[in-house]
């Protein structure tokens, strides 16, 4: 029997929450999630090989001492834009034949305040959330503390969301 996820989640809250709002109506067995693990592993390898997770590269970026990160992010945006264009133009389907939809982002002040706060943290830790895990995998075991603290940060946000300007 096909069960929809729609009924158990609140779209408004989720759209504030995450960058990807998954509108898939299909319910899969748990091991289907392994495909995400494969993509994640590739992503992690790229993080390390491209030195995106290097604390030093991030410092160089913010001191305008190297083009490295600008090149990486710029290339990613160009590839992403072409991909998005092709997906929209050709109405590319997911591997399960579902339509891919793009949700327009709504502006709220969180993008300014949260963006600034994230920027401060990015320059200290030399990592955004994904790379923290790759840093841990690269052998910097103490990064587990940073990850725990970041998770605590997301939790505190959730706790005080109502009081924060959006």
């Amino acid at each position, binding site marked *: 029997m096909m069960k929809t996820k729609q009924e158990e989640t609140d779209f408004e809250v989720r759209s504030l929450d*995450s960058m990807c709002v998954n509108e898939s109506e299909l319910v899969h067995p748990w091991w289907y999630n392994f495909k995400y*693990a494969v993509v*994640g*592993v590739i*992503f*992690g*390898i790229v993080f390390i090989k491209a*030195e995106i997770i*290097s*604390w*030093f590269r991030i*410092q*160089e970026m*913010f*001191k305008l*001492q*190297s083009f490295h990160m600008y090149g990486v*992010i710029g290339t990613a*945006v160009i590839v*992403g834009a072409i991909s*998005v264009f092709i997906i929209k133009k050709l109405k590319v389907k997911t591997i399960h034949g579902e339509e891919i939809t793009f949700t327009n*982002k709504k*502006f*709220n002040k*969180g*993008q*300014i305040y*949260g*963006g*600034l*706060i*994230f*920027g*401060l*943290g*990015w320059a*200290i*830790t*030399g*990592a*955004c959330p*994904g790379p923290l895990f*790759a*840093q841990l*995998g*690269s*052998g*910097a*075991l*103490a990064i587990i*503390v*940073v990850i725990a*603290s*970041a*998770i605590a*940060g*997301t*939790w*505190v*946000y959730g706790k005080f969301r109502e009081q924060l300007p959006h």
Partner: protein
Amino acid sequence: MGGIISTQYLSSPDPVVVHPDLAKDLTQFGITDFSGLVPAQLFSFESLFTLRGLIMMVGGGFLVGFGTRYAGGCTSGHAIMGLSDLQWPSLVATICFMIGGFLMTNLILPYILAL
């Protein structure tokens, strides 16, 4: 897992080349080990018990987690995918990421590193 695989099997023996000006700045603060992807002298269990390490690891991590959720996305969600999809709120967020980063690296971090 990707991190483990690339470090174990795909790493190149050459050290990461750090810009000489950055190396000079960091040396002033006692950071001389440029071998890892993260400076071991800042991010280690020993440094967790120093004020500098505590601020950078716990404080920095907190800002990353809190800011990412507040902004509704991170570098990949806003800067890469958001810009790819021509979402102007993502451009605002990306600009704010960069402002925050420039402020921290150039104005605030030197004081933290000096602790």
